[in-house]
């Protein structure tokens, strides 16, 4: 029950707390339903929830579904957020393998599911399922393409300046006889990254005759739509060392949905 006299802030914090329970949806909990309905109806309440979330290190991504049957989706506001478990994995990964490669695999998973931004925004009308091998194949294919284009560019000396695709190409192919996924080959990395996303309610698995396929959840789609316009976009700009951003690029960043 929503306690009588519970202030707005208390209710907004309660809603955020419920959003943190990834599997809970409003059809299972009457309070959640009431709070979600209030969230959809009141701009001031939305603002309050967003502020409380921000204070905790969370960003409100949006509502999935509707108040009757849906859930509020929040995400960690950055790698420093106490809620960013996946980012913690990256620190682990850096020991066994350069974590940049791991990040590339995550982006490749997104690209394998949705090639263009329009696909990501369009309503789902066809089935998408991938195995880790498909993601690995996409990465290898792209690296090969870049290799063909860039054959003439001189190899720079510093390992940190080596292009990322060279780093990926240097990874060994998966060993067929290896029973479990390992961190030392591309296929194993894809497998690990996809398993991590399953833990995070970003992907879900389906078994067909002994092989496992991965399907994206609505949470991943929604979150990518948001992060591609914000965090990842900013990262790209920083990464490509845009020293003096052209005016239209600045405008793009400003227009990105908050």
């Amino acid at each position: 029950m929503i306690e009588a006299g519970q202030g707005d802030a208390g209710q907004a914090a309660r809603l955020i707390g419920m959003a943190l329970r990834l599997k809970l949806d409003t059809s299972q909990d009457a309070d959640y339903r009431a709070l979600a309905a209030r969230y959809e109806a009141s701009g001031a309440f939305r603002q309050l929830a967003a502020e409380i979330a921000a204070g905790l290190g969370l960003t409100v991504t949006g509502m999935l579904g509707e108040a009757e049957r849906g859930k509020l989706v929040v995400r960690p506001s950055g790698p420093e957020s106490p809620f960013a478990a996946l980012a913690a994995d990256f620190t682990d990964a850096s020991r066994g393998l350069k974590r940049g490669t791991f990040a590339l695999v995550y982006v490749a998973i997104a690209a394998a599911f949705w090639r263009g931004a329009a696909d990501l925004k369009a309503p789902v009308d066809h089935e998408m399922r991938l195995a880790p091998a498909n993601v690995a194949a996409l990465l290898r294919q792209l690296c090969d393409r870049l290799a063909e284009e860039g054959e003439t560019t001189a190899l720079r000396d510093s390992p940190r300046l080596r292009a990322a695709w060279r780093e990926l190409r240097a990874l060994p192919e998966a060993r067929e006889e290896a029973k479990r996924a390992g961190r030392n080959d591309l296929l194993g990395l894809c497998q690990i990254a996809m398993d991590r996303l399953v833990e995070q309610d970003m992907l879900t698995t389906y078994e067909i005759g002994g092989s496992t396929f991965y399907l994206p959840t609505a949470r991943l789609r929604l979150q990518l739509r948001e992060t591609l316009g914000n965090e990842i976009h900013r990262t790209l700009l920083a990464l490509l060392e845009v020293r003096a951003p052209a005016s239209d690029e600045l405008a793009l960043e400003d227009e990105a949905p908050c």
Partner: protein
Amino acid sequence: MQLPDLTRQQRNMARLAPLMRLDQQKNIALRSVPEAVRDRIDMKQAILFLLDHVMVQSGLSLGAEPAEVKAAVADAMSTVSPASEPYAAHIADVVHGWLLQPDGRTGIFREDYFDCADRVWKFEEFRYLRIVVDDVSGKVLLRLGDAGAIIHLGMLDLDDAFAAEIEAEIIRRAIARGRFDDAVEAATRALKRSQKYRADLMGHLIQARRSLDGGGWVDKALPLLEEARRHLEERQHDDQAVILAVEDKIGTLQDDLESLGKAVHVRELVGECRRIHAALFVDVCDANEKFRVAQTRAFAARRVEDIPDPEDGVLLPLLRAPIGRVEENALTIGAAFAAPSPPGLLDLPRFWADIAEEAATEELAAEEDDLDVQPLERLPPLYDESFLSEIDQWLRERAATDRDLPIDRAVRRLTLERSAEAARCGVLLYLHHYQSGTPGHADAGSPLLVFRGDRQWRDGAMGGDLLTLRPRVQLDEQSAGIR
């Protein structure tokens, strides 16, 4: 020479071809089944059972749960064929796999057929089943693909709209004459046909929406919608009439319990039909509006998206960038893919209370009158040997893959993949892993907890880093390094 136009028939035959092929290849597909049983199994029939179950479930809810579908097929196959239960389950598994996995990634079948008008060979890509993820619950469900619906509907030799009217009449007459078995039969058939009608109509609408050439919609879909709306209005009218007739009859049947039960069943079945028709009516009324929106979107000049393309706009620039820069930004990219997970602070007192809970209740339940309580030399294991070794194997494999396996992640995964019991067992194994002695038995002589050695353990005893499983070898190496 003028060719007769047999394109549609050929295309539909092409859609059947993979099913026939599976039946021909059953000696390979079912090689583990004894030949005597195998010879009397019809794979086409198994496929039809599967499609039927999916269609019925899709009519009632969002889709069919894979486990239920397989169980239904196994059930049907053990009834119609001499296959024993495990073999029937195997057949269900094979059929399910075959329908979904022709080329692994997309599940699309591809067959050639001859187009008589264009006088060329063309190919048709289709699927029998689709896998969908429910938006809210995240559950994976099966729905009928376009070819699945056509196969299922094509096997009926009656026009649906016409048949529905006949069936309503049959039910009414059967009820009036007191022939309840016939009425139940007819109502079941009517229900199934309503579901098929729904799947068929939705399939047409989706097809029409996909090919947004505009003409297809106005020429084909609009008349279809108009007809569907008229048909549904009539159906709702008929359903209501049948329900009234059945209820009248129920009033006169108070003494005859058997007939009463059947009459109530008929009313339920017809009520279900009415529900489907009502839902479909809403779908049909919405369809035009939905199409208009889709069309506007397709014909609008492709506007500049406010987000970059995942492949060309993000992945490729990242691949071109120096690996050092990618590494610097890896954490931000990782955070963008993360769902919030509550900080991994373990409330140790509660944690221990939770895993010790069952033992405590067992103690309370001990018989009080048994005074000859003997002290045990050694506590009996909480779990079966096989269960322990299964979970043990799971932990070992994960630990080998990930190098470290923090206890909170292990608990989360075990709860998700197995059960809460498995997670509890896993925690106990954590405490006894890589020690001398049998897993599951306490050994007072060896250290209980394994802490991550990177930091001072006081710092390490916070958050998700609290307990970590690592192969013994690694720990030894590390401590050697510190020394």
